[in-house]
């Protein structure tokens, strides 16, 4: 059975950015249905669908919503994470550009379910055009009674704002984002308390990724059972956007049932670039461990990737062919994390810096035999010791370099790079 796109079904359709066009394409049925249900029933439906967060951690969305305390009179908030800062990720952008009403609908359903009357969409600063599109779409939604004091005639009040970030990876981390939203330096907070209890402005807050929320209207409209029928198993359900970049002929954002394989993705992308062979791939963005080509038939879902020692993350799939120098690629990633650590935790601030310097030294032909062990040790001291997951993210590629590609690092160290294969180009030219 051919898979009909769900999240991307409106891509390219004229007029869908407006409420009228979106309705014509079948939109706002999910919200309408939700408003006719008890909020708790909406949460139950989302729970039953098995929808897991698409922002990186894969936390069950319905469960997260159910953590919002009931019957306390503090305002509640939804903050939609549109920071999309994980390198290699460009799916939320498509969703916002192409089908902003879908996101507004998803946000509105979530707000109804958790009794939030305010929603912020925190969008990365570089997404200027996307922010404008969203604002336009929100204006139109207000004009058509989707937002405002009386959402679709239900009496439910909902305001929605677009908040633009100022350019920091760490503001994609949910509590760093809340700090930034509140006007402070983007630095993750201590957890607990979790945002569901103390979030934006000290109030209970749901934080969900754009793609997560875009799934919600479909779950409501077509039911949890339909949703669950898509995907690999009970724990990995629904459609998924994969952002394929790197050495393929046609990089792009592709929608598949969750659990597509690397090989299927490469086929969809018109094969490897210039017919080269696959050497390795990053399945889930800069934070994920790099996997060697032998995993190309692994279903790319949350659990299978975790089992393989990597993660689905944001499903930013970065493909590296046989000419890629993994050490250089990892150095580029280490440089990214060093640049983006917020700097409050000692292990992250110093570990991301140190690891970049070690790799730089190796690439300058000055590596020592103990360096692979040193990298592992830095990883050990950085991993699991910090406030937020950025340090763990930085560990992902570093550790996989030593564990999955020992010969690459050994070649640099033994021969100062001289013995390593000639390279047509370096990964960093591709991985910007």
């Amino acid at each position, binding site marked *: 059975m051919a898979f009909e796109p769900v999240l991307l079904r409106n891509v390219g359709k004229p007029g869908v950015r407006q409420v009228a066009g979106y309705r014509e394409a079948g939109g706002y049925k999910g919200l309408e249905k939700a408003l006719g249900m008890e909020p708790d029933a909406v949460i139950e439906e989302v729970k039953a669908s098995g929808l897991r967060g698409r922002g990186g951690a894969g936390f069950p969305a319905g469960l997260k919503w159910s953590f919002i305390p009931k019957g306390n009179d503090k305002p509640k908030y939804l903050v939609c994470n549109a920071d999309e800062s994980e390198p290699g990720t460009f799916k939320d952008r498509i969703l916002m550009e192409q089908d902003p009403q879908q996101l507004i609908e998803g946000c509105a359903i979530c707000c109804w379910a958790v009794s939030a009357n305010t929603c912020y969409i925190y969008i990365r600063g570089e997404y200027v055009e996307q922010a404008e599109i969203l604002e336009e779409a929100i204006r139109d939604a207000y004009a058509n009674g989707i937002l405002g004091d009386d959402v679709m005639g239900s009496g439910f009040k909902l305001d929605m704002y677009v908040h633009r970030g100022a350019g*920091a990876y*760490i503001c994609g981390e949910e509590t760093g984002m809340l700090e930034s939203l509140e006007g402070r*330096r983007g*630095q993750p907070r*201590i957890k607990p308390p979790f945002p569901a209890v103390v979030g934006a402005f000290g109030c209970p807050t749901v934080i969900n990724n754009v793609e997560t929320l875009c799934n919600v209207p479909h779950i409501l409209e077509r039911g949890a059972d339909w949703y669950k029928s898509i995907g690999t198993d009970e724990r990995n359900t629904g459609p998924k956007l994969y952002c394929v970049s790197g050495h393929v002929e046609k990089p792009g954002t592709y929608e598949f049932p969750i659990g597509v394989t690397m090989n299927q993705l490469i086929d969809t992308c018109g094969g490897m670039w210039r017919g080269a062979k696959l050497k390795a791939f990053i399945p889930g963005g800069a934070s994920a461990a790099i996997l060697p080509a032998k995993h190309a038939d692994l279903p790319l879902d949350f659990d299978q990737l975790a089992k393989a020692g990597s993660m689905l993350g944001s499903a930013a799939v970065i493909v590296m062919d046989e000419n890629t120098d993994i050490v250089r690629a990892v150095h580029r990633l280490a440089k990214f994390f*060093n*640049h*983006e*650590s*917020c*700097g*409050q*935790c*000692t*292990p992250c*601030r*110093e*570990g*991301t*810096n*140190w690891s970049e*310097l*070690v790799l*730089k*030294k190796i690439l300058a032909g*000055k590596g*020592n035999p103990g360096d692979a062990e*040193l990298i592992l*040790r830095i990883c*050990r*001291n950085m991993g*699991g*010791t*910090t*406030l937020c997951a950025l340090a763990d993210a930085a560990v992902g590629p570093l550790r996989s370099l030593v564990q999955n590609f020992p010969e690459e690092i050994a070649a640099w160290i033994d021969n100062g790079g001289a013995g390593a294969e000639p390279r047509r180009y370096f990964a960093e030219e591709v991985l910007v």
Partner: protein
Amino acid sequence: MPTVTIDGREVEVEVGTNLIEAAKKVGIQIPHYCYHPRLSIVGQCRMCLVKIEGPPKLQTACTTQVMKDGMVVHIDIPEVHKAQEGVMEFLLINHPLDCPICDQAGECGLQDYSFKHGQAFSRFVFEEKRTYPGRERIPLGPSVVLNMNRCIQCTRCIRFTEEISGTGELGFFERGARTEIGVFPGKELDNPLSANVVDICPVGALTSREFRFAERVWYLDKKPSICTGCDVGCNVTAEHRRGAIKRYKPRFNPEVNDYWMCDYGRGTFRRYEELERLGTPAIAENGEQRPATWNDAIDRVHQSISQAPESAELAFLGTGFLTTEEAFLIARLADAAASPHRGVASEEGPTRTIPNLHGGISGSETSPNRRGAELAGLVAGDGGLGAAELMQGDGASRCDFLLVADGDPGSPLHDSEVVARLRQARLLVVMGWASTPLTEVADVVLPTATHAEKDGTFVNCESRLQRFRAAFPSPAGVRPAVEALADLLGRLHPDWRGLSTAQVFDRMAADLPTLAGLTFEELPAHGVELQAPAAVVGGGTPPAEDAHP
């Protein structure tokens, strides 16, 4: 109260106590840098990682609160040691490690912990250390200098200015390994409490402009004392080298100054360096002072009192720099002379506020003990001349004898008009440690100890009686005032001869209902709040209603 088990030791703590404080109770120190008991908890340095049974990962002790019974914590285990070593290594890779030329050496959190929790070799051999060129000697304000190369980004200083001084001059700039501490554009770290950031900086990144590189700390002798800058009475440690004070540091007293003191107070020991010290007693003959022995000088004063005719007017003027015990002896002298003329010279000054957990404490007098001196009896009797009549009126011109005691240069006695008025007394006796305009014109000069050289008590602006002790002995030729006064009084009433400060206090406590039951040696470390207001008359404001909410 819930019970928590830390390395096998059970301890009961109040709900919400964090693990660093809980461990302190059983004598276990969990290493930490960013945590400070009075600052918000940020969990940033990651030095305090401990193993808690249950969660798979190590947890930060500072952010973990004991909420209910049954938490089991392990600190002395290899997993935790490894984590501590890891954090230490991260902190040291970019640290200059030039302890021999660093001002913090000897009192550095990095030195202390790397000795205990670090490893003895540096792995960071080839990579270059991160430095902040041009940021090694940045004056942040009048009192504090920053060397960014030594900073471990614990943010204690930032949080101090946000949460304690409430002035918010400092912030984090840049991010990651380039993170810097600095003042916000257009600001200066110039709040009245600014130098406290030097004390709470765990490393040598923030140094005091006054003290910087003046002394190696291990040469300093540290003695508990009390600041004399105002009537808050901040508890301090006087750090001196052979009797020369090099700096004051705040000494913890939760009832008074908590962990802090003001910048002004820190500088008050300078008066001991700047002013000329009186070295020997002097007696004036025909308007010219000549050195005299203590015996002769005391004798001269004794005779003036004991031989005064019935009609003579004798006056006794103290200052807020006297200890309560000294004031008490002077009051007894006045009693012996049956004189109602007594008072305490004191002065209102700028209000100095020190934050504490009771809503802060504010003093606005320029001396530490006006209240104690008045409590001890230096208050004019019926029809007597008080401080105002003597200093601002022509009271002194009616006096045959005037004793002015502790003419500390910080007291309001040295205004030339005041000096001229006091000089109108027929015989002027001045006790004090420094040469002042008043000692210059005195008939008898008695050189006495500074507050750092004597024992005694002060009563602060909230009527808290606090004891302090001599940090070092006074120089040859100089006597503590209690000794001199007991000598003088002993010549009138033998049973006062040779009394120590403690004995004087105990007699005073027997006399004064406010002090009933107290003894000098058993005064509590944080002082006692006196029940009845110490101030019988005179200026100053009683403690605000909500001083102890």
